[in-house]
């Protein structure tokens, strides 16, 4: 990336009396190497702050529920069961992976990161997989029809293999939440109000089906990545 070394330069702690502290009083504050280092560091940390791991769950040891539409090649979220509960039979495999704060890519303000679902799968015959992004923190993946909000994939090679589904985000992928939190639950009266939380969020779901036999989809992680 431009204007960064791509790493943080180790420096003495802020406030240090060392003459290596270029920002201390009586050190030159004019444009110089310290300014360039600061530019580089902040740009790099900004790049890194756009990406992180959002979720990590065990996943499903029993993916045996077929597609509710009878699909053998998934095309949309409608081909998946988004309401199956744990221990349902045949084995349902749907998980909301949480509501998360999403930030634009720091130095490319018109760009959003990608959501990437990674895991391992072991199809018995053919396994369908779906990753859905629901704007905001309400709603269910079942209602999503916008092709920009989901990714589907089929896995039909028997045996353990990597599973990676990627969904690029856009302005339409997030909803905006602004609220003033009420903190705790006092025995009487109204909880204390605190600092306003104002964030862009989306809720991430995944689901799987099997066209026959018991498949597995495990060690699921969801990350924001470039």
């Amino acid at each position: 990336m431009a204007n960064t070394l791509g790493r943080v330069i180790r420096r003495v702690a802020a406030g240090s009396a060392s003459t290596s502290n270029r920002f201390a009083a009586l050190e030159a504050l004019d444009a110089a190497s310290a300014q360039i280092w600061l530019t580089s560091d902040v740009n790099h940390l900004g790049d890194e702050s756009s990406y992180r791991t959002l979720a990590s769950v065990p996943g499903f040891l029993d993916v045996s529920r077929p597609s509710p539409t009878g699909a053998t090649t998934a095309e949309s979220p409608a081909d998946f069961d988004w309401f199956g509960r744990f221990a349902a039979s045949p084995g349902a495999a749907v998980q909301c992976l949480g509501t998360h704060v999403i930030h634009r890519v720091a130095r490319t303000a018109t760009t959003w990161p990608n959501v990437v679902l990674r895991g391992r799968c072991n199809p018995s015959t053919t396994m369908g997989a779906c990753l859905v992004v629901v704007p905001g923190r309400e709603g269910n993946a079942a209602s999503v029809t916008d092709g920009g909000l989901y990714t589907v994939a089929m896995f039909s090679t028997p045996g353990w293999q990597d599973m990676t589904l990627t969904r690029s985000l856009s302005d339409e992928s997030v909803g905006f939440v602004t609220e003033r939190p009420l903190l705790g639950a006092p025995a009487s009266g109204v909880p204390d109000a605190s600092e306003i939380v104002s964030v862009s969020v989306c809720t991430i779901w995944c689901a799987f089906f099997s066209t026959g036999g018991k498949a597995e989809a495990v060690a699921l992680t969801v990350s924001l990545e470039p």
Partner: protein
Amino acid sequence: MSTEALVPDFAPLLYTEALVKGTVRGGHTITRAADVNIIALGRPARRIGPVESQTSASATYHCGYTRSHDSIKQLWLAWYFHADGTNTPASISVSLTITDAAGHTVGPTDARVPTGFDGVAATALRQTALYQSDIFLGASGYLDLDALATTLTDPSWSFAFSFASTASTTVLDRIEGWECPRSQVDDADDYGALTGPVNPGNPIVAGSTTTLGYERIAKTVEGAIAAGHTLLSIAWPTNTGIAPGLTSATFVPFTRMLEGGATPWPWRVRPRVVYAPASAVGEPHRVRYLYQVSGGGSGTIRCTATSVGAGSVTTADAALLTSATWAWSAWVSTTIPTDGTDRIVSLTFTGKTTAGTLSVAAIEVEEYQ
């Protein structure tokens, strides 16, 4: 004490603004402060779970948590459940107990714990269609981290969520939580650089780490570095019939975290680069486990980090695990390689025990600069 609204837009920072013999200007000093505020205060990356339900019965899940730094003030929590369609709606509750590594506790009825995490049973909403298991919000709320820290003085916290339901068809869906981005900058906090004092007409100063000026910006860069990522926050019920376990005297994968044979599940994540790009050694992290050992055994859990493609490997052993009841291990320091394809690294877990069964009900892996 002075405060400002946190500017949420990351301004471009260019080397050309900082040429030797150029002039330090208020404008580019302000953009440096605004940008580092965003990273240190506006983009925290520590989280709780999300926890995936692993049973249709009542269960307790533990998640570890450490605060990014003291300038992050609030944590959002929520739990969700699957509704049932019977004519007798189930009664459900979640009870949250937070403890620190020194044994201090904040219980579910503490005034700092939000309503809905207090263990008080409520009638569950019913599903809208007979064979459909709608997912509903059980409760959500915010925690005041400063208020909790007055009791939980050790920085390593554990959140124990006990879900109870009177019907096996009204089950937990998930528990989740994350640190809230700040919306204001406060010079009473450890980190956060006010921009107002460098508006045109005011001098640009070195200042100090606690007031304003370039020292305060440099201090806030340290806050940005401290805002490390949670790589894994995984929880199983504290039930040895569900949580992964093993009985081997040599390193083997855990059952229920095993592909088959001797291949453990690989959890693929992307670490942050701070100081060491594309490095086989990588960045400092640490790992801990909620575990128990039956039969008087002494267990060891090994975390192996392997960069995808490059194949660089680091390992970290949590040894001498002897608790016969569920307990957190001590933190074990490790480094995680950053030289993988797309910077992806695979984390696997194996273990051994001298006797009995070694079980693990939570794994927490976090960046630790």
